[in-house]
């Protein structure tokens, strides 16, 4: 007997739907043993995670707060993935987006609420887009690998923002601490229900809808899909692939940049170190799990939010070490990605001697 991996001819809809759910089940089952070993009842813990992240207005609002930047960044990354362009730089694009929005908020002097927010939005959009556009240009013009360029530009972006908050943008009244001044009320998004949930969330949903229509209903979206599946065929069909690559990376970065706008205008109200605790990297996993679909990104981002917010309760209620929370979140992601594999492939036992 031999075990071989075989590509499935078709993956049934049932399988595609049930595999991720089953994989979460398996992950919870495995994590359950870790919980038992720490003397915590797994069922109790899972119940608490759900209650914590969804069971109250407050919990739900926090989950949505967490979901918001993930949706933006996930949409940006998934758009590029559509065209087989690997934008690993969403983290940096979030930072420059936040920088652009903060620049408008701090120094433009605009007094009208909606003009201010619109200006901040477009500043973030352009900054994020330009940042990713550099990689797009290099890729289109000289075939420079965009994975390397976007990844390395993350560090430049983060250090650049550090430079600004330690230097020229530092709050003069902040005792030399590395923070910009707080934004005025003009530059803040609306908050709801006395929670931290802000209108950035609805903007994120709107973005998902627009992106969906763009991909599925426009000629440009069609071109992106064609170039993504076969670049040479696209060229043969007369599509300007170079322009499309630049354009897609620009748009991808611009959408990730909006996450920066939403974070500073909706949540942080100032620019500071660590405005994104790795949302740009989480976005890569999200885009992958969502199969690059805009709707999928919204759903997966929300699940991610539940996982991140609910994970806190493990520490809060049972004083489990933070390493446990990371291990728990890692297990779930691991099994989700594994399920992806089994949707495309299957394991088959073959009698000895059979070809592999």
């Amino acid at each position, binding site marked *: 007997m031999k075990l071989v991996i075989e590509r499935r001819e078709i993956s049934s809809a049932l399988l595609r739907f049930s595999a991720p759910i089953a994989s979460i089940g398996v992950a919870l089952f495995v994590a359950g043993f870790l919980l038992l070993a720490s003397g915590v009842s797994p069922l109790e813990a899972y119940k608490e995670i759900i209650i914590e992240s969804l069971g109250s207005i407050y919990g739900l609002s926090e989950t949505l707060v967490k979901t918001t930047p993930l949706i933006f960044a996930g949409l940006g990354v998934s758009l590029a993935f559509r065209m087989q362009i690997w934008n690993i730089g969403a983290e940096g694009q979030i930072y420059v987006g936040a920088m652009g929005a903060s620049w408008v908020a701090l120094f433009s002097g605009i007094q009208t609420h909606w003009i201010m927010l619109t200006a901040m939005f477009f500043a973030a959009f352009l900054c994020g887009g330009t940042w990713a556009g550099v990689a797009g240009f290099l890729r289109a013009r000289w075939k420079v690998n965009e994975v390397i360029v976007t990844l390395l530009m993350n560090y430049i972006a983060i250090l650049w923002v550090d430079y600004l908050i330690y230097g020229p943008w530092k709050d003069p009244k902040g*005792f030399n601490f590395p923070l910009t001044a707080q934004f005025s009320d003009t530059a803040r998004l609306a908050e709801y229900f006395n929670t931290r949930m802000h209108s950035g969330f609805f903007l994120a949903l709107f973005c998902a809808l627009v992106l969906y229509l763009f991909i599925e209903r426009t000629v440009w979206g069609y071109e992106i899909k064609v170039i993504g599946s076969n670049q040479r065929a696209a060229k043969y069909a007369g599509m300007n692939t170079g322009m499309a690559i630049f354009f897609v990376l620009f748009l991808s970065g611009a959408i990730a940049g909006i996450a920066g706008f939403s974070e500073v205008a909706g949540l942080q109200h100032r620019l500071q170190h660590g*405005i994104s605790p790795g949302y740009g990297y989480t976005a890569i996993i999200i885009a992958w799990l969502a199969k690059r679909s805009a709707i999928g990104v919204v759903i997966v981002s929300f699940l991610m939010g539940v996982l991140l917010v609910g994970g806190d309760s493990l520490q809060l209620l049972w004083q489990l070490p933070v390493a446990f929370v990371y291990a728990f979140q890692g297990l779930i992601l691991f099994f989700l990605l594994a399920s992806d594999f089994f949707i495309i492939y299957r394991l088959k036992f073959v009698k000895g001697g059979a070809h592999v």
Partner: protein
Amino acid sequence: MKKAPLLLLLVLALAFCLPGCSQQEKKEETSSAPAPAESKAQEQAEDKGIKAGFIYVGPVGDAGWTYAHDQGRQEMEILSYVQPSTFIETVPEGAESARVINGLALKGHNLIFTTSFGYMDATIDVAKRNKDIVFMHCSGFKTADNVGTYFGRMYEPRYLSGIVAGKMTKKNIIGYVAAFPIPEVIRGINAFTLGVQSVNPQAEVKVVWTQTWFDPGVERDAADSLLDVGADVLTMHQDAPATMQAAEARGAYVIGYNSDMRSFAPNAFLTAPIWNWGSLYTKLAEEVHNGTWKSEQIWWGMKENLVELAAFSSAVPAEVQALVTEKGNAIKSGTLHPFAGPIKDQSGKIVIAAGQIAPDGDLLGMNYFVEGVQGTISK
């Protein structure tokens, strides 16, 4: 695929509807809210038990900053009316922390300590929504009616440890692994350097920034780079003991920080400026329990024993020990202040005039290096 837009509309509709439904729920919630608040108040009136919560920036096992806070937490728990306290470790600084702090507030904690600078905005924000809870934020500058701040004059034992370093260096190159160029860290580097120069004006202090509080790998690299350029005494403003291990491996001396870390570098260890949070935490718990707590900005020093110099290792000669002990007593009695002028900055300009002592406000916002420091602060 045709169904997808419908699905999205559904999601959108749900999202917009949720607030509507939730508002109703919220009304119910607010109407029922006073009940638990009352019972909580009654409970407090009966025994005024302290249920404390702590937010830590690193893991409790970091052997440094967070470890020292956790020791203080445990010391506070000795009080009979202090219930077992809760801590949450490795909480990211910034807006992210507000959720975790609020989590503690929702779970019935009535005294919450947030132990890193980056929790400042979040602490103020959560405090606004939880007026009946006392918050204490470590190292910040914002207060509110129910938010106080606390910190220690770590520059005092830093100055003393500088004297030890100045006496022990042979090559006159001392390495300083430092986290972020913020006033707290800069103040420590300056005090340390002033201590060094008070006994050894030839010695220079080289600073390497790591841009992290806790990252043993990065800290180790920074320490190694300082050893590479000839430093024979190291110290650090970091939460991990990586600098100690680097010095131990390369046969240099090292001065620790945060807690007595000599077990990480038995041969290299000289001494360490350390925190004793226990006495302060105990006092605050008492005040909240007795109802005498009020918002203030606490900045204790060696006199109150919030900060001190750890016991010397046998590598420090007796006369150096005696000198440092004498200076330490002078600091405690108030006759010696590390930041008494004349003090020059790196360019040689007098920043604190002779006969002057830098006021607390200047110390809290310190943004320049004194003469003798080799390094830059980005401006």
